[in-house]
């Protein structure tokens, strides 16, 4: 089995990463009853013996998987945490996950990137290039067979978009064979960072060139989803203990993080006074993203009757090299096992996954053209359920002419934690050009007036032509999607098949 390394960059990236590791531990704890370090655990974790007297972190006794029957001693995440200010990473290291990350596994600075892509990409990119590359290299060496990098960052800030894309470029150069999956959080229309359109467009160019597969997400959709779930919970008065999302946002007290002892298997503290569960504000939203990542990798970690590896996902859902943006949606939606939207049955699960409200980006895929669609099912579902639902849904969806049967299906027998069955839908759909158009327009509003440009151009290494190049490449991408749509609706006759004249 292959291994994956996560690269968490910036505040957003690290917060998503933190939730991801927490949920990954919980999922594996539920599946792995015997406490052995087996192959599925080794895809994300390393087994380490802390009692050995090793001087350096990376020479500490690494216990390989072997026959898959070694007991777990101490797990370390295959992750690299990068940030330009210390607050977020320090908080993670103070929390219950500090044993999963080692203190030498991250790179931080003090001053932050000031929401400036150029500072993140050029200044910090150069400053920390060597140390980050060294850290990644060491982590990669500890892997038997590295399959992919998961890069998590936001597009609107400075560190995530700037330094994040610098790291992406670096791993594209150093590890060309390894897949690069990027989870990018796009700025929503009402976000509070003024220069976010600049950061976003500049980062988009890097993503277009260097990422294999991007899963765009935005906060607006996540907030809507979380609110929906919580309002249903409050209404039905189920056993959820969480307070309403907006009130927890007001009463945030990040220093008092109590995570339920069911959530992690190595939580050292916090078993006392766990009556009131206070969560960090963005936790619910990040949980959804983390669940998406877990479902994505489930078929490559666990057995099933129709396995789908990560390289198959990129292979099947990316028909043209630059159009690698996959819209994701989860069904059923759940924040934790106690707070979720109950789904009435498998049929509803399938139809929900295609609804606008379930998408993790503000988009409506049903009204646009599908280039390809991937369905990853987990749990107690069988092939006949899948086929039946595909046949039912197909008439409602608009697939491109040459890919009318463009489905990629996967079945994993191990269910997600707390859910008997779940579905992740990854669509390569032209509706994403609307999101990009919005960003492009917001960029234009600022760029026409040259507003805030001096912050960028005064950074060493930054050239103003980069703005126009990035804008142009985004425009080209949008046009590519548009062309696909117009070509599809035009009725020119198909080119006749090649024949050998005898």
């Amino acid at each position: 089995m292959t291994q994956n390394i996560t690269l968490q960059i910036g505040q957003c990236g690290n917060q998503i990463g933190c939730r991801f590791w927490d949920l990954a531990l919980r999922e594996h704890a539920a599946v792995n009853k015997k406490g052995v370090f087996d192959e599925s655990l080794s895809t994300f974790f390393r087994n380490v013996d802390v009692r050995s007297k090793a001087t350096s972190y990376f020479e500490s006794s690494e216990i390989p998987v072997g026959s898959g029957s070694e007991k777990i001693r101490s797990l370390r995440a295959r992750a690299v945490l990068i940030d330009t200010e210390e607050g977020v990473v320090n908080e993670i290291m103070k929390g219950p996950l500090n044993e999963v990350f080692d203190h030498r596994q991250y790179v931080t600075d003090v001053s932050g990137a000031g929401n400036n892509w150029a500072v993140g990409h050029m200044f910090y990119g150069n400053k920390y290039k060597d140390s980050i590359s060294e850290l990644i290299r060491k982590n990669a060496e500890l892997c038997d067979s590295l399959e992919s990098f998961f890069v998590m960052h936001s597009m609107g800030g400075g560190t995530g978009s700037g330094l994040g894309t610098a790291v992406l470029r670096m791993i594209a150069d150093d590890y060309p064979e390894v897949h690069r999956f990027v989870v990018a959080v796009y700025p929503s229309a009402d976000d509070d960072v003024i220069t976010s359109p600049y950061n976003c467009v500049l980062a988009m160019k890097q993503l277009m060139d260097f990422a294999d597969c991007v899963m765009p997400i935005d906060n607006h959709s996540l907030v809507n989803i979380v609110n929906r779930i919580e309002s249903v919970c409050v209404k039905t008065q189920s056993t959820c203990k969480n307070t309403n999302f907006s009130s927890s946002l007001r009463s945030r007290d990040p220093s008092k993080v109590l995570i339920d002892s069911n959530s992690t298997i190595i939580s050292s503290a916090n078993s006392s006074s766990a009556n009131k569960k206070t969560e960090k504000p963005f936790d619910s939203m990040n949980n959804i993203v983390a669940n998406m990542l877990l479902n994505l990798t489930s078929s490559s970690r666990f057995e099933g009757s129709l396995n789908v590896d990560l390289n198959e996902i990129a292979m099947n859902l990316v028909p043209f090299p630059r159009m690698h943006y996959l819209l994701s949606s989860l069904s059923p939606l759940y924040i934790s096992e106690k707070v979720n939207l109950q789904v009435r049955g498998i049929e509803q699960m399938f139809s929900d996954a295609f609804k606008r409200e379930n998408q993790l980006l503000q988009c409506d895929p049903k009204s646009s053209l599908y280039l390809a669609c991937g369905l990853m099912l987990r749990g107690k579902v069988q092939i006949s359920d899948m086929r039946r639902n595909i046949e039912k849904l197909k008439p409602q969806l608009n697939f491109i002419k040459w890919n009318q049967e463009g489905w990629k299906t996967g079945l994993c027998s191990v269910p997600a934690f707390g859910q008997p069955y779940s579905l992740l839908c990854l669509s390569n759909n032209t509706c994403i050009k609307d999101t990009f158009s919005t960003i492009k327009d917001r960029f234009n509003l600022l760029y026409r007036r040259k507003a805030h440009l001096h912050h960028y151009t005064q950074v060493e290494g930054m050239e103003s032509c980069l703005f126009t190049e990035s804008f142009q490449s985004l425009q080209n991408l949008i046009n590519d999607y548009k062309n696909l749509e117009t070509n599809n609706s035009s009725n020119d006759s198909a080119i006749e098949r090649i024949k050998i004249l005898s």
Partner: protein
Amino acid sequence: MSVITVQIGQCGNQIGEKFFDTIVSDCLDYRPNRNQFNLNYFNKLNQDYSQECMERFFSQSETGQTYARSVLIDMESKVVNKILGKNQRYLFRAENSYTQKKGSGNNWSYGYCVNAPKSVNVIEDIIRKESERCDRLCSFLVCMSMAGGTGSGVGSFYTEFLRDSYPRTTLVNTCVWPFSTGEVTLQNYNFLLTLNKLYEMSDGLILLENDTLHQISKRINSINPNKEITFDDLNMVIGHKLASIMQPCSNSNLQRNYLNEVIGELCPHPDYKLLCLNNVPMMSAQSIEFSTFKWNSLYKNSRQLLYTGGFMDEGLKWGSEKSFNKTICLSLFARGINDSEHEHSDLKNGFFDDDFLNKHFKTRAFGIFPEPVKLWQHSRPFNRYEKSLSMLSNSQIPAFKIDGLIEKAWNMFMSKAYVHQYVRYEGFEEENLLNAFSKFSSSKPSYLTY
């Protein structure tokens, strides 16, 4: 005469497993019907049958453990590990398995150009050792899918390899087609490239489609309407179908090269290698006890299946005057006790009437005259069915479907979709795809217009 099964990819390994399960349960679980009055005869029959079957498919180790004559190949380890871990009445040899870590990504060129050459030295050894364990090796049965990356790419590579390394051993491929509503987006490309290779290298291609298997499974499990059909059910059907033609027959014995004869009769011409496999009856285990079978109705059903291109004896379209399906030749495998009313040879000779023979059997056009219908037979019932009839036919049925699939692949190719995924691996260029298309434009019409 032994058969070595080479199982490639997730699909290949899963169906190989079920194939062996079916054979073992057929041999060991047979109980003659208590109403039969000549039990000694049947026990002797069963013994001979089992012995031949064991020789054909299994080898014994010194400790008396039964091992399947099988080579398991996959580019990722989960499926093979699961199979090796099962402990049953027979085992798969762990040293006959080969796995890698990363899989083939549903990409034919990744499987063929990158993964397969990496593995060839190891697998060469494995196959050689397994063939040395056989007294006389008569054929290879390669099980693979045509949609995935390993099954299609690595499968094509090893078919070529086996053809080159063992030129006198019969090579039969069992190829599984994905669901037509879409299982893998690259299925049409992979299918085209695989068919291209297999057509040159293989002796006979047995085609099985997930769609038809799904229908058959549904019918078999119709007793239990709440049960959802799983891949296991589909694979059981494949196991039954394959075993029904591969198990011993009276006309064969330990000395004759059984598969070579079967395939030799069926594929007389190198351009016509596509075989369709139909079985009657196919019903749930509970229904069998309440059904009676008669040979002439089984023969009639089979004939109708051939005429209409159907796959199941339920919902057959009777009463169609003309059959649109032209046949080159076919083989019938009749397993079960004779009934007093009809003799097999009569039924076989009367299978087609003269008029049909003249219109639909164009073998006379080639100037070769194989028997249009060949009958293989054994009196011992097969797999709980008191009487069963399998039909392996070389006819036009698959050609129509292939044409449709190639059309779809062509449309995709014209839009240049996914082509970059294939050409990025060294050894594969766009020309390969183009060549595959042109090859099929020249030989496919021959199936459709003869």
